[in-house]
């Protein structure tokens, strides 16, 4: 198991390090003409999609949990502790 994890870390680093070097090196090259508005607002909308997706999933999960495991739900079963009456 340790060997697998070690191999995973080493191979991960072998992939990540060249990518990081490549990306950092790109910072020295002159840039191309672009429209800041398009880039920045595009990023904003993409991140808002992620934020709202996470928000929907999290709040949906909480609502489902509250409804499904409420005491008055017909499907609710007492836990083993509640069933036996001992803790």
């Amino acid at each position, binding site marked *: 198991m340790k060997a697998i994890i070690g191999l995973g870390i080493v191979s991960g680093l072998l992939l990540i390090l060249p990518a990081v070097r490549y*990306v950092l090196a*790109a*910072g020295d*090259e*002159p*840039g*191309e*003409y*672009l*429209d*800041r*508005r398009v*880039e*920045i*607002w*595009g*990023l904003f909308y*993409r*991140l808002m999609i*992620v934020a709202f*997706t*996470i928000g929907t999933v999290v709040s949906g999960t909480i609502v489902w949990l509250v409804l499904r495991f409420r005491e008055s739900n017909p499907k609710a079963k007492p836990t083993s502790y509640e069933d036996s009456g001992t803790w």
Partner: protein
Amino acid sequence: MSGHSSWPEWVYIGVVVALLCYVGAEAWNIERIIEHVPADAEIIKVTGQQWLWTFEHEDGTKEIGELHVEKGKAYKFEITSKDVIHSFNIHDYVVLLDAVPGRVNTVWFSPTDAGEFPIQCREYCGLIHYNMRATLFVEDKGA
């Protein structure tokens, strides 16, 4: 705990971590892309002081309270301040950077539309901060 399956939790954690990685990587990448200044960008020195903006072009031309640029050309702003911290903002072109005394901050943009656009200080800098404005005039080439 016995009788408890934790795989949905691991899936949940994995998805959240993946999304966070995506958010970080995407934001970092866009920031990197927009910070690359084109080689032929003209440098404009921007100086903020209570409560006006001064601009100096590469050829030495100075402007106070207004800035004339050419449509489609790249401009690199070198922004500083003479007194307190200001913030240089051209809202319509999403340009926003602090003007800090003793420090030169840079940002570049390339105007795509001709017209007049407001420039405004976005860091509270004193009594007349609200009126520390200038106007950006984007003109067609040869106009």
